[in-house]
């Protein structure tokens, strides 16, 4: 267990700035996921933490020690690579032993550590094989074994599951989570898969273009995205963004947007659950109203009565996409396509009008110009 601090770290190649000042602070035992599309700098940041890439500016601190000039092998970290990077010429056992051997661990101690790790990962029966004789999932385990056996301060994972098929990926995801729960080691994990990020992380850093857009626990990232980018990147389907106007409504405020129902265009007003003082300057101005698809559902009287901030409105259905559990229902709100999660037994045919219910306690508002959360 070690804490990790990244202080205003930059990486540039000439005029190309890959990382534009990254800062984060991670307590020992946390599971940080660096989430972002390819080219956002997340792997570069990981490589810099590992010491495989030089740092243009800023500091990386592991357990209170600035490691900028420390060789990777002396940082007490271990890394699992996307390609697994198993040494093809060595058996599984030798692969796992290599790091110990390089560190001068005596042979008996090595044996003990290897058998313990192999047992933990259930790869004891594979120790004599070469990597080419293993399946994808087994290689993944061996790669993790190679990292685990040294019991490092920090684990670094570079998209470790992206080469596995869908089912195996889910299984391994669970195993990584179990391992973290069991070992409690600090983990930094890079992925572009937002579901992996949500399921594994205790902290998510959503990255774009060399900056961290939001650093928060997964539920907070999901429910209160710092900006429209985060709202759109996390969650599948992504958050709905409805161009709206903030208007006065009784004692509070409401979002007003256009929507077609029963063949005629009209405005819908949805009162905000929490019309705080901060929103006052936004009255009568354009905002982006963000709502997760699961907060936009079919109208259900029983539920509407329980949920204080659920409001109903009518809207024409454009497209239906059944997914099994829910039917994704496409509607046009304020000129933008929005997706509602509808109970498959309550769907309406495309072109017809349907009564929807918006749970405004999950609403987000964004500034249309800066795209930041208001």
């Amino acid at each position, binding site marked *: 267990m070690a804490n990790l601090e990244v202080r205003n770290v930059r990486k540039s190649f000439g005029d190309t700035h890959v990382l534009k000042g990254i800062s984060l602070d991670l307590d020992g035992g946390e599971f940080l996921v660096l989430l972002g599309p390819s080219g956002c700098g997340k792997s570069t940041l990981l490589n810099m933490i590992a010491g495989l890439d030089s740092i243009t500016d800023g500091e990386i601190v592991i357990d209170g020690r600035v490691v900028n000039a420390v060789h990777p092998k002396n940082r007490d970290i271990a890394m699992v690579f996307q390609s697994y*990077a198993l040494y093809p*010429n060595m058996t599984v056992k030798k692969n796992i032993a290599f790091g110990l051997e390089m560190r001068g661990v005596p042979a008996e101690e090595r044996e003990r550590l290897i058998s313990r790790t192999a047992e933990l990962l259930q790869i004891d029966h594979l120790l004599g094989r070469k990597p080419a004789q293993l399946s994808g999932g087994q290689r993944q385990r061996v790669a993790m074994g190679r990292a685990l056996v040294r019991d490092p301060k920090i684990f670094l994972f570079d998209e470790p599951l992206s080469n596995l098929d869908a089912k195996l990926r889910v299984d391994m995801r669970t195993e990584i989570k179990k391992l973290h729960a069991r070992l409690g080691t600090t983990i930094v994990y890079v992925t572009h898969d937002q579901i992996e990020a949500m399921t594994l992380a205790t902290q998510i850093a959503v990255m774009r273009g060399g900056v961290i857009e939001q650093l928060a626990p997964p539920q907070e990232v999901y429910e209160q995205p710092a900006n429209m980018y985060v709202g759109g990147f996390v969650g599948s389907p992504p958050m709905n963004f409805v161009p709206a106007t903030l208007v006065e409504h009784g004692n509070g405020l409401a979002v007003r947007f256009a929507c077609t129902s029963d063949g005629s265009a009209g405005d819908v007003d949805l009162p905000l659950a929490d019309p705080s003082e901060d929103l006052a300057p936004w009255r009568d101005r354009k905002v982006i109203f963000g709502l997760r698809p699961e907060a936009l559902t079919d109208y259900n009287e029983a539920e509407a009565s329980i949920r204080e901030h659920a409001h109903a409105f009518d809207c024409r259905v454009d497209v239906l996409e059944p997914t099994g559990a829910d039917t994704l229902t496409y509607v046009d709100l304020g000129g933008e396509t929005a997706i509602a999660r509808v109970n498959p037994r309550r769907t309406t045919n495309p072109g017809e009008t349907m009564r929807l219910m918006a749970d405004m306690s999950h609403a987000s508002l964004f500034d249309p110009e800066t795209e930041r959360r208001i």
Partner: protein
Amino acid sequence: MASLPQQAAADTLGAKIGRGVLYAALILFAAFYILPMLVMLATSVKDIEEIRAGSLLALPQAITFEAWGYAWNEACIGVECTGLAPYFMNSVLMVIPSVFLSSLFGALNGYALTKWRFPGANVIFGLLLFGSFIPFQVVLLPMSQTLGFLGLASSVPGLVLVHSVYGIAFTTLFFRNYYVSLPDDLVKAATIDGAGFFTIFWRIILPLSPSIIVVTVIWQFTQIWNDFLFGASFTSGGAQPVTVALNNLVNTTTGVKLYNVDMAAAIIAALPTLLVYIIAGRYFVRGLTAGSVKG
């Protein structure tokens, strides 16, 4: 491999004729190349009387290996009548260290150029590449001066130096192009595991290189063994490699021209490269086409 339409096509008459023509042409070409070899072999086992009386293409009537023994032990090369044997040994002593050194440095260069990218790596690779385009003749004079300066003129170690240095351009090219396809993550993983430059080279990179090593060794062996120009330019007398000695043997005429000895000597001089191809040839093609290592 063969899909159904292709098999169907093979049954038509036109396709059969085409195939026949193809085979005929291939057999003709093969014969064209093998014939000189057969004539050499046949001549080398005839005695000189038979050569004089018979036709060049006729098969030997009585096989005798006298000419081989003579070429190996007794034939006169210039004024020394020692046969090819000492010169053959010269070539062996020249080719083994040269192939070893040039391959080793090529592998190290290729590894450093691909896995430890340093500023200017591409420029250096470009310059090395350029080195493989330099014709032999260009370096003759400066090289002979250098050898004289080092005290290696007219010696087998001198030839080892020349061939090792000259070969590095080619071997680097081979190894570099092979190592470019090895995943960089291997080196990163080993670095984190605590291995340094040379440990990674010996323990991880080199064990993954057998196919490209074979290619390089065959290439270098053939080049160095068959070299005539450097051998003729930088050595004289007892230090000459077998190629130069063969030339001198054939050109040393005392009375009757012993064609059978000439032929036997030529085959002896060519035998090692032939053997290398026969033994390692299948790895050669495999190594040339190999690239990716699935790990």
